[in-house]
């Protein structure tokens, strides 16, 4: 971030010996300068605090939207390690959030459905287009449930996949309704 060159003078501290040799006029000018500069800094400080508050509110807003989304939300590395997960996902999997980080997502996918996930991820990385699939997942404690995954991939400036955004929803109800039809 730009800090220098913002028009404010950099302060050089004068030692009391150096001050002694200054003329009263120079001292007066210097004092004025310093006092004004001080106020300048204080004002700038206040503004920064205000900007920070606004930024904080905005951050909290989007963090909340992410964290308490109606769907589970995980950010995965290209290889499938959980980089981050929201509260809904942790609740869905019945795991504390801290224990999710760095785990492989495949750990939470039902053994017989690993292939579905593999193909889903492959297609996602190959096409770069949003993908969705349905598979069974396993909660902490072993309970199996049907889930719907929707995923997109985030690329860096060179077009190299940086991470995957995956949203997970429990579709037990859908499946039950489907069966009843």
């Amino acid at each position, binding site marked *: 971030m730009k800090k220098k060159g913002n028009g404010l003078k950099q302060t050089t501290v004068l030692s009391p010996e150096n001050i002694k040799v200054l003329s009263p006029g120079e001292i007066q000018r210097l004092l004025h300068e310093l006092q004004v500069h001080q*106020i300048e800094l204080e004002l700038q400080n206040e*503004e920064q605090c205000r900007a920070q508050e606004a930024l904080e509110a905005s951050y909290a807003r989007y963090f909340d939207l992410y964290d308490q989304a109606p*769907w589970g939300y995980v950010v995965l590395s290209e290889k499938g390690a959980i980089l981050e997960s929201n509260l809904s996902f942790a609740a869905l999997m019945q795991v504390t959030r801290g224990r999710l980080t760095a785990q492989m997502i495949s750990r939470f996918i039902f053994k017989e459905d690993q292939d579905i996930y593999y193909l889903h991820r492959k297609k996602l990385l190959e096409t770069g287009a949003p993908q969705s699939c349905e598979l069974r997942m396993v909660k902490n404690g072993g309970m199996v449930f049907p889930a719907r995954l929707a995923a997109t991939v985030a690329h860096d400036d060179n077009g190299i996949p940086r991470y995957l955004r995956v949203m997970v929803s429990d579709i037990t109800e859908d499946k039950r309704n489907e069966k009843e039809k």
Partner: protein
Amino acid sequence: MKKKNNEPKKTSDLRERAENAFRAKTGAELASPAGLTQEGASMLLHELQVHQIELEMQNEELRRSEAELETARTRYFDLYDLAPVGYITVSEKGLIIEGNLTAAALLGVSRGELTKQPFTRFIAKDDQDIYYRHRKQLFETEETQACELRLLKSGGVPFWVRLHAVAARNDDGGTMCRVVLSDISDRKRMEREREELTTALRKKNGEMESILYASSHDLRTPLVSIQGFNDRIQKTLEEISFVLAKNEPAEQLHAEIAPFLTNDIPTAVHHIGLSAGKMERLVNGILRLSRLSCAVPVPELLDMNALTGRLVDSLKFQIQQAQATVTVGDLPSCWADPHELEQALMNLLSNAVKYRDPVRPLAIVITGTVKGNYAIYAIADNGIGIKPGHYEQIWGLFSRLDPSGAVAGEGIGLTLVKRIIERHNGDIRVESEPGVGSTFSLSLPRTGTS
């Protein structure tokens, strides 16, 4: 994003405001340098300079944390904005407060066109009620709610989405809801295709069943005549033999005809009789099976103790013949059609008699337990048993484990049993050990609606 305050153009403005503030303060709080001693002035200058450095450091710190915060905010804004599903926030009054990029793309509008719009504007007319109920339920229960409805793309083209919503509080303590929109057009299309297929299949199945019924019915008539004429050939043969013997023809002729009469023809007649008999049982079996598919079971609360008692009574002769013992425990009642269940139990019991092990007297034990809403019955015998690899095979139509025909059977009995149990929403499985015996376990619902 909001511009920060360290842009050069704002600096002069800042300087001006500082000068103004300084002028307002001068004389009041700030010491006038004129009244200071040389010593005092240098002290003041020094202090001011140090304070200024403090402020500069503080400023620096603020900028750094602001930069960090901004990175984090951008991160979560991106996660929100570029989420794999549409995501909107709707106010208590039903206006869209904010929508992400995915939602805007889904609805075919720009993000700006979403804001402050009533969400219902994007819902297909026929599905407004679904949304109304969904919303009502969401605010009443405050639990995650889901529903499926059609939204309208900008041009008015409807498409299917699934809505997932949670209620949340906004800053003023009011209620709003966060709604995730996922496009399920693909799934809906597949569902429709599957429904069409199922309907077609059901129709085909119905046709098949009527063909099966008709053909087995029609097959019976020629079969009866084959059997009848076969009997007649047999009788004619006897007569010819009798006449030939009586008339004492030439030795030569007798010798030539005799082997046909006494050997070839009777053997053929015997085989025709066996095959026709077998065919009759098969046709009868198919007929029973297709009658079962046509008939609708009429379930009732069934006293299984009485039913089993009657059944064992009616099999008394076979049981005595096989020198078997049948032990029946106390059986819970279940919800089933009495005729069909009697048929199923009859088949299981006669199988037990048929496949008994000649090395020991047959013992059949029937027991029952209750498990939740199900009555479980076990029919255990000490017969020849079934190899584990054949467990699945036994239920198949015309499937026989011993095709040599040592035991008479058509491979229909267990198929019929399984059909009967399954159409009662029950389940049947077998456990067996060759040379030890088999146990068939039936589970049937204990209650139902008539």
